[in-house]
């Protein structure tokens, strides 16, 4: 069976294997910082919070809750990005398993094309902290035609927005389970 997210199985840490916290487990929780300029409506992200270009490159930044101290998040995410994206309004969070469960299905294709929508990667660049992770389109999505991608990406983005749920205060986002 062809892997849909081969990159998930190994670390994408810039220093290579053995560095950072290793691949993101499905039982982890990830955080997404919401700034004033991040599209949101009614206390939730809108699909426009996710850009195709960023998802193609695996550049939608997440913080792994289990591996990111609040102080690190404040310094490396909020303070580092507020000058670009406006005041931090809070965070959204979601279970990694929920993101990995998002599927897409292309209607009209024979056979029907179905697969995972996104991968959750242990992706740490030189400028990142070790608890950094990223969302990227799955390898199955790459196999679609350009027109199919144009049609389905907004739907995937909408599903991502729903999976993150409501925008929480930093205290609540870093707290226990959100009911």
């Amino acid at each position, binding site marked *: 069976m062809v892997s849909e997210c081969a990159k998930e199985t190994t670390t994408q840490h810039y220093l290579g294997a053995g560095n950072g916290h290793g691949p993101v487990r499905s039982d982890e929780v990830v955080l997404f910082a919401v700034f004033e300029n991040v599209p949101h409506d009614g206390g939730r992200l809108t699909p*426009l919070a996710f850009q195709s270009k960023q998802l193609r490159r695996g550049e939608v930044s997440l913080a792994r809750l289990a591996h990111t101290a609040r102080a690190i998040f404040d310094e490396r995410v909020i303070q580092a990005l507020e000058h670009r994206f406006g005041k931090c309004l809070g965070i959204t969070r979601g279970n990694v398993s929920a993101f990995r469960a998002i599927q897409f299905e292309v209607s009209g294709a024979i056979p029907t094309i179905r697969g995972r*929508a996104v991968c959750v990667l242990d992706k740490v660049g030189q400028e990142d902290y070790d608890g950094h992770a990223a969302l990227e389109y799955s390898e199955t999505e790459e196999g679609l035609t350009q027109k199919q991608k144009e049609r389905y990406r*907004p739907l995937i983005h909408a599903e991502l927005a729903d999976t993150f749920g409501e925008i929480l205060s930093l205290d609540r986002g870093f707290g226990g389970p959100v009911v």
Partner: protein
Amino acid sequence: MTALTATTEIDPVWHFFDEADPSLDRTDVLGPNSLFLSYSIIAHRSARIATPSGTFPSVVEITWYRSGFTSGNTQSEFLTINVFSHESRLSMPRPPNYDMLSISPAPIESIPLPVDYAVQISDPMHSSLSRKIREAYQSAQLDHDAAETARRAVNDAIGFVDFNLHGGKPLVMLSDDGVLSVQWRLGHLGVMLVFTGDGTGTYSIKRPGGSYAVGAKDFRLEDGLADEVRAAIDAQAAG
């Protein structure tokens, strides 16, 4: 004196239609053949309306003025009207919600209406939705390829929503790759329409336990909105 005048608003809609397919039907709003002449409406700027052949609508934005008012008068009323041209449409039934101009809510003199034209005065939601789409286009910063996709997608979307959609206050989104989507959402349920600028669209209804990305369907814009989508949008709006 009760005569009314109007001025066409030259806004991005015109630019979209200026670049429309040359096979489209066109009708004048200026001169002796003006659609509006018989209603004592004077369009003082030259513009043309394009209507996809066999479909509708043309979108014309007209500011109506009471006699003696000027273009700077704040009491002018801004409406969007969809013109249903008679050309090649005699055999077609009048689309739902289209009223004859003479019984429209606009303050127009009761001049007999040519039987081969019908006009819809959109409700404010229609007008604002078109406007939101144009605003999304105007505020977007896109690279060259995406801008071309966006221009076509926005053109498709404006033509489609003004005729087919009513109710609710959807989100309008233009993505970085130039795709226009409209979303009605209520909690984790919702409806999405996606326009990619090729005369077709994709719709998805997210039901309890479902997903936007599974079960979406493609459709031709000229076929209009499927009943199940209309019902789902109405349900969102009512919620």
